């Protein structure tokens, strides 16, 4: 299994290289200019000098090579030195064009709110979806099942920019119970600030977890329905096992296999943040960083985030494959 994992990782490297080249080429070829957001009163000559100060006038392969070197050599070194408390290197780090700050510093600053809001919503969504899916399948066509199906459909069909707006209208504007804007500078130090934090997380987490719940419930229910019709479930019942043991020990365990891969493959998206929801509530996590960088043609930031995401997705795929082995004794990796 270790060898299998290592071999998969080795195969991932050329894949990542190709992805990085493709993303870089797409961004470089796409129309748009990082200076387009400046007021028109700033003349073209000044813009040209600003571009060259950012290294934008260098040819494509030089810019790509520099970025790759910074990503695989400079940034890990900086991280290592920071970990070991050594003297910092002088080599130029990947700088965002918009903020002139190291991209990894920006990502590190954005990760906490993305992980708390998007991550919590994901966990919450799964925690609700699994029992909902299992029970819906067990009580197929009951009122509970129909209600669950309706919620799942609603969650899939209603986009976050709509559900977010509705929640803001009801809870922020009409009732004035909850804030509509997330304050990233709030630090939790006592009960009061914890309460504030919970209040401001409620709406974005609700919007996001509705979506996760909807998707995973449908997978879980379908897989469970499949399993409940199998002979081994009938055999378990015939043996006289309790309904609980049949449901949890036999049917649910098997039907988790496809669901786990869905969950694992969705996990990297947590790091990417939730572009629309973050934008609506001003959560300003990684998703908002990505979309604002795309708008500002901030190539280094877009490129770096996309690469990290690609790496995470490949890693998540691998983890999902390895998880099969744990859940299903028939799967072997020799």
């Amino acid at each position, binding site marked *: 299994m270790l060898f299998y994992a290592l071999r998969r990782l080795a195969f991932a490297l050329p894949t990542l290289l190709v992805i990085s080249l493709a993303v870089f080429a797409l961004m470089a070829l796409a129309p*748009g200019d990082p200076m387009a957001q*400046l007021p028109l*009163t700033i003349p073209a000559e000044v813009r040209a000098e600003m571009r*060259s100060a950012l290294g934008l006038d260098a040819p494509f392969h030089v810019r790509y090579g520099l970025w790759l070197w910074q990503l695989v050599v400079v940034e890990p070194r900086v991280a290592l030195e920071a970990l070991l408390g050594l003297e910092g290197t002088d080599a130029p780090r990947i700088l965002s064009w918009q903020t002139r*700050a*190291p991209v990894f510093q920006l990502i590190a600053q954005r990760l906490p709110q993305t992980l708390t809001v998007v991550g919590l919503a994901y966990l919450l969504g799964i925690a609700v979806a699994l029992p909902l899916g299992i029970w819906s399948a067990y009580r197929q066509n009951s009122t509970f099942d129909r209600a669950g199906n309706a919620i799942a459909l609603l969650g899939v069909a209603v986009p976050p920019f709509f559900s977010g707006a509705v929640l803001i209208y009801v809870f*922020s504007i009409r009732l004035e119970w909850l804030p*509509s804007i997330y304050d*990233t500078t709030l630090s939790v130090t006592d009960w009061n600030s914890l309460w504030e934090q919970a209040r401001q997380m409620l709406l974005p987490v609700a919007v996001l977890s509705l979506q996760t719940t909807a998707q995973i419930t449908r997978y879980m229910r379908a897989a469970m329905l499949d399993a409940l019709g199998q002979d081994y479930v009938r055999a378990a019942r015939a043996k006289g096992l309790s309904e609980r043991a049949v449901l949890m020990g036999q049917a649910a365990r098997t039907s988790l296999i496809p669901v786990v891969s869905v969950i694992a493959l969705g996990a990297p998206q947590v790091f990417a943040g939730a572009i629309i929801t973050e934008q609506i509530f001003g959560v*300003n996590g990684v998703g908002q960083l990505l979309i604002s960088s795309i708008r500002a043609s901030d190539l280094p930031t877009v490129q770096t985030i996309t690469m990290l995401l690609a790496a995470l997705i490949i890693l998540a795929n691998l983890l999902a494959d390895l998880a099969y082995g744990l859940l299903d004794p028939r799967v072997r990796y020799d």
Partner: protein
Amino acid sequence: MKTSVFAGLVAALVAIAPVCLTGSPAQAQQGRDGEVRILYWQAPSLLNPYLSGGIKDVEAASLVLEPLARLSPEGQMLPWLAQDIPTLDNHGISADLMQITWRLKPGLTWSDGSAVTARDVQFTFQYCTAPGGGCAQMDKFRGLIAVDTPDDLTAILRFEAPRPYPYGAFVGPQTPILQAAQFADCLGPNAPGCTAQNFAPIGTGPYMVADFRPNDAVEFVLNPAYRDATKPAFATVLFKGGTDANAAGRTVLETGEFDYAWNLQLAPEVLQAMAARGKGQVVTAFSTLVERITFNFTDPDPALGDARATRGHPHPALVDPAVRRALAMALDRAVMTQIGYGPSGRTTCNIVPAPPIYASQANAGCATQDLEGARALLDKAGWIDTDGDGVRQRGTVHLRLTFQTSTNAVRQNFQLLAKDWWRQIGVDTQLRHINASVFFGGDPGSADTMQKFYADIEMYAGASDGPDPEAYLSTWACGRAPTPESGWQGSNPARWCDPAYDALLETLSQTAGLSERAAIARQLNDMVVQNDVVVPLVDRGRVSAHANSLGGVQINAWDSELWNIADWYRLPG
């Protein structure tokens, strides 16, 4: 009008408040009003205006960094860190117009306690002009050869040629004074790498940066060393960025989560509905931002190949003044203003609509639509619909025009209105809209930039940078036309060229004295407008909103909107 009188009254009250309240020190303490919450839906990326010319960055930095002089909401210079505004009369400007002498207020300190000296002014000049730094405000320092510092409080700016209007550098929020000690190692190519400095500059303003989160939020705390011990009233500022104009307006006008929301470019009826909740009020300020239509004087026909849209090939229809005038006459600018901007726009017939002394009175009446007159004009010039297809022609040239602008709801509405009016006078219009970052991006490799102007008509907004319009008016000079030779850069996309205009610009560049300069500027404005090179449509105001409980706000379109944040306070109740 009513609100501005009210604002003026409040401002007057605030001005005398410290005098009245000397007896009760508790009332006049710094930081007595707690926190003020400001929402900019475009978040600041860094707090150094020299590295980012973006308005959001400049305005966020204006809480900390201050220039020698600011501009008032009326567009007048106010001495800020300087004792007074240097003029010819007070000998602050030398008689040969080659130098200007600024004198700092005595006793100024940075927020770290060290003294502000003329050396900091000198350093700021070096910082922006150092090669390889990519300074966004370099244009303001152009022609400046040295800053001399005979003593700690005197900075003499020397120019390479006589400069009749020498107030470019260090006036307004774009060019504040940096602390030499903090930025000493950030010259030239080192400038972008100075992240710590660019995120938390040390300044003289009422606030200091406590926490900067790029493209997200800034926490400011009051500067205890601020020169007025009774200000600012707010101890901390939460400066949040992100979301969109709609959400920003909502947080002030509907939910009351924030005290101030910036730049609410929303449909007038949306803003009205929000304001009806009664939690806050909408404020507007005007400067020189004019939405305009520009005609192409060169032929954008793709068949011309490389010679497309160059001066060797005049436009077959639009070089005829009658066509341009007829197209302008067919527009109902009042309707456009009302639909697109409501109270935040004013119909204008000038490209230089303010300050009042610069605004020409010669073009009033342009705002009235005259379809009949437009038709008559075209008839007289020989543009007649001979083949009955509804489109006028003269010889082989048909009045079929392409009208382009950036993708934007208001602009696209304007396009539809114009298309319909022009149809009524026998002109067929094809509409195009282009993503703003491409349209304004200036990429010479793209065929869709406003500079290249591969269309017949285009619409965008432009403004003068500061109250003196010389630089702005020179954008219509012959030499400013984007051409293949200039890499398709240049501010005169019409590629209009009038030697008389250039000659008058030359005169302006040698004339000193406000009223003399204003007279020439009005004349230049009239040449551009009366030749229908540009059709001014709407004088666009800056629209923001503040909570009813926030006092002291004086919205300013000439300087930073937050220019007087030291005077803001919480109203009781």
